[in-house]
């Protein structure tokens, strides 16, 4: 194993680059651009329901001013920010509010002031590691789900670790494994770093397509004939897929649907043995580990990045981290990752604009509401999934525009924040319930797995990843949520 990329105690120099780019200079965060209008705080979903949280204007640009004078905020003040980035999207003056917040959090963590209570330190340690929990959970998913389903387990978790007994912990599924769809054709031979992990798998060799029988009740699929091949029968167009923890441990079926949709469009899909993108670690104050994960993942991507192969993320938080945080990590590939990462639907839209998206759509009778995840909004690419789905005959899709769902990664799992998370999402839940009751739509489409879980928990309405609609339109199978 190449030690260089798994350094857990990464040096501070590299660490500091994760969230603050020194090249942006003294006012790199556009502090001076703040006109004190308060629009950010007026839109912050947390400040609206939790009076003790001062809001983005106060903890961002206002506090930054004081910090420059050496006056720090009371520690813990920031713990309630969910990093949803609504403030930053709203700000008319382009102030980098969440960069300021994360920077202070990092300093608090380094100074040991942020985490006063040991029990919660342990919890943040656990929740930050969606990946390790996922690995445990997917060893024997029925057992994990049963045990986590017991009231007694949940009460114990709340008592001992402060993990809410009522929060919607996502169920574990079979681990996302590439071989479930296509055989592992070959481990990458040519690239040192990748080889050493030995988990890289490839799709796109057409003969074995369609073995995927998924939990969403999908039908078997026909082999894809779209993979462009060279003379030796190897696909010439490649993409790297970054599945993320939710797909890997809770929803492998969607991962397979993503792969099949890409294959249907003629791509060979490569999935190296990635670790967690690092977002849950950052959100739980584990910045150094987040950097180490980024370095590991960049090491795996580097050879593909050099060949100009795009990296596709279907999870909007992973995608945002790859585009925004990874370029600031010191590791090979960091210069390229931002420009070469695409959200899945962003990528499909680029194909569409080039006239390369396959449009052999069957009619899909589905009326859907669409919820834009906060971390999709923060990417600044609009809502490409809505655009793509509107190309499919029969699909009706309407954006909800009802703000944040309140889950925010692991925020809602914390006992003291569970109620708050439901309050944050209440506007969204009410709108969903109203729409379902009036039969305006049958389900909510949203890219983020966390949003899906929270919407189902808060509103009772079914929720699905929009890729399933495309999957069905391509005749690759039927998704139970839209029938």
């Amino acid at each position, binding site marked *: 194993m190449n030690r260089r990329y798994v350094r857990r105690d990464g040096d501070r120099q590299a660490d500091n680059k994760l969230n603050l780019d020194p090249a942006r200079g003294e006012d790199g965060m556009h502090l001076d651009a703040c006109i004190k*209008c*308060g*629009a950010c*705080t*007026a839109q912050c979903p947390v400040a*609206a*329901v939790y*009076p*003790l949280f001062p809001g983005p204007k106060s903890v961002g640009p206002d506090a930054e001013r004081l910090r420059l004078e050496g006056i720090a905020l009371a520690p813990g003040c920031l713990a309630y920010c969910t990093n949803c980035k609504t403030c*930053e*999207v*709203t*700000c*008319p*003056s*382009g102030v980098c509010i969440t960069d300021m917040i994360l920077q202070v959090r990092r300093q608090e963590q380094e100074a040991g002031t942020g985490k006063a209570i040991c029990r919660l330190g342990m919890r943040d340690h656990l929740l930050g590691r969606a990946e390790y929990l996922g690995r445990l959970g997917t060893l024997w998913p029925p057992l994990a789900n049963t045990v986590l389903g017991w009231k007694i387990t949940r009460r114990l978790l709340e008592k001992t670790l402060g993990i809410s007994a009522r929060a919607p912990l996502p169920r574990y599924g079979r681990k996302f494994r590439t071989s479930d769809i296509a055989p592992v054709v070959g481990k990458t031979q040519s690239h040192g770093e990748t080889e050493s992990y030995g988990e890289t798998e490839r799709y796109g060799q057409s003969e074995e397509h369609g073995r995927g029988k998924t939990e969403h009740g999908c039908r078997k699929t026909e082999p894809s004939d779209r993979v462009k091949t060279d003379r030796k029968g190897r696909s010439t167009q490649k993409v790297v897929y970054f599945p993320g923890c939710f797909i890997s441990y809770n929803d492998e079926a969607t991962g397979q649907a993503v792969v099949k949709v890409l294959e249907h469009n003629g791509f060979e899909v490569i999935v190296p043995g990635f670790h967690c993108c690092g977002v849950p670690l950052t959100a739980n104050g584990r910045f150094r580990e987040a950097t180490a994960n980024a370095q590991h993942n960049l090491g795996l991507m580097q050879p593909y990045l050099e060949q100009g192969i795009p990296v596709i993320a279907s999870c909007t938080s992973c995608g*945002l981290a*790859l*585009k*925004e945080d990874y*370029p600031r990590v010191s590791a090979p590939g960091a210069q390229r*990752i*931002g*420009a*070469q*990462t695409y959200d899945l639907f*962003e990528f499909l839209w680029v194909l569409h*604009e080039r006239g390369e998206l396959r449009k052999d759509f069957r009619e899909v009778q589905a009326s859907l509401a669409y919820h834009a995840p906060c971390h999709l*909004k*923060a*990417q*600044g*690419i*609009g*809502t490409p999934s*809505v*655009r793509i789905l*509107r190309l499919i005959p029969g699909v009706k899709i*309407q*954006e909800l*525009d009802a703000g944040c769902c309140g889950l925010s990664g692991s925020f809602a799992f914390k006992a003291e924040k569970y109620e708050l998370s439901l309050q944050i999402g*209440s*506007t969204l839940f009410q709108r969903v319930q109203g729409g379902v009751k009036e039969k305006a739509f049958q389900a909510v489409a949203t890219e983020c797995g966390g949003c899906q879980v929270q919407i189902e928990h808060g509103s009772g309405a079914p929720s699905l990843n929009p890729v399933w609609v495309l999957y069905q339109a391509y005749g690759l199978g039927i998704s139970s949520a839209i029938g």
Partner: protein
Amino acid sequence: MWDGLVIGGGIAGLMAGIRAQERGKRVLIVSEGTGSLAFASGGLDFGTVEQLRKIERHPYALLGETVEEAFAYFLQCCPSYHGAWGRTGMALTPLGTLRAADLLPEGLDASPLTHANRIVLVVPEGLKDFFPEVVKANLQKQFISSNIQLKRIRLKEFADWQAIGKPIPDTVYAKFWCSEQGRETLKNLIGEITRKMVSDSETLVFPGLHAAACPEVEKILAQAPLPVVEMTSFPPSAAGQALYDRLRGRFKALGGELLIGSGVERVEVESGQARRAIVKSKGKEISFTAKVFVLATGGFFGRGSVASSTEVRETVLGLPLYVPPEWSESRFLGEQPYAYTGVEVDHSLHPCDPVTGKVLLENVFVVGRMLAHWDPWVGHCGGGVSLSSGFLAGGLL
């Protein structure tokens, strides 16, 4: 390829987008932020259109009859707004004084106050930026013969806020009024006040309610046995935000897409036509091609124009601007010439060279605060010019 790409999603850009979508065009609005509606009162000013139309080069002079059409179109788009062409309405400011406005959302219309014998001013405890004593004093000054009373309300739902002495924003109150429990509380409160009503010429002034902008609350108010007058607020303004939400909702319901949070860096021009807008998304630049572009970037306030000590620049297309010889005048509240800075256009809103008058780009329309030769503060026509130029662009697109 989009039919239209609108740069800037303030009132002018949204209006252009709505009208074009309604005409069956596919429109993308790219906007850095939410625009100045979030600070504006929620009322829209048109000014004395007949007078302003006579001023050479004022946008109204170019827009002609369009202004009246846009006025009517807006009322049709936003049925909760009221107004009559040529008759100016009144709204209460956060300090309790009156200000004129031509288009007002239902609750902001302050005219019932003029014939009220008794005015009950509701004082929601802890409401941010609300000064009941000042409001009462100002109301008394304007309505000398009215009996003005304060009605304080304290809600247990806000105990957490009150315990730490934190002012409660009107948007937070609004969220409560919209909830089931809040609606019940509101009904009871109105019931309690009207039980003690002595005559039928009484009016309730209720701050922070318009922010609710939800149909259920509007229904309760419509059924109340006395008029309920609401107030505008200091920025960030909930009534302005509510109008923004309405227009955005309408645009999206018509199938339009709004990309918010990242701006257009530049627009690539090929052989006299704008072709591609380059947007700075996270990690990379992405481009959108469109047949027609609308520049609605809001002037200095929206950062569509920026000034250094020596020059003024249009930030997206690099269009030449009309810049008045003197930028400022020494009286602070006097007429400030810088406000007339902007892009000169022809009757179809195409950008023109301020020296030669030649049309610069055939497939670009310039609207709203980006236009030259007007001052929203002096002419009291901020909403009117933005609305009608956006409306025209949406019709031409």
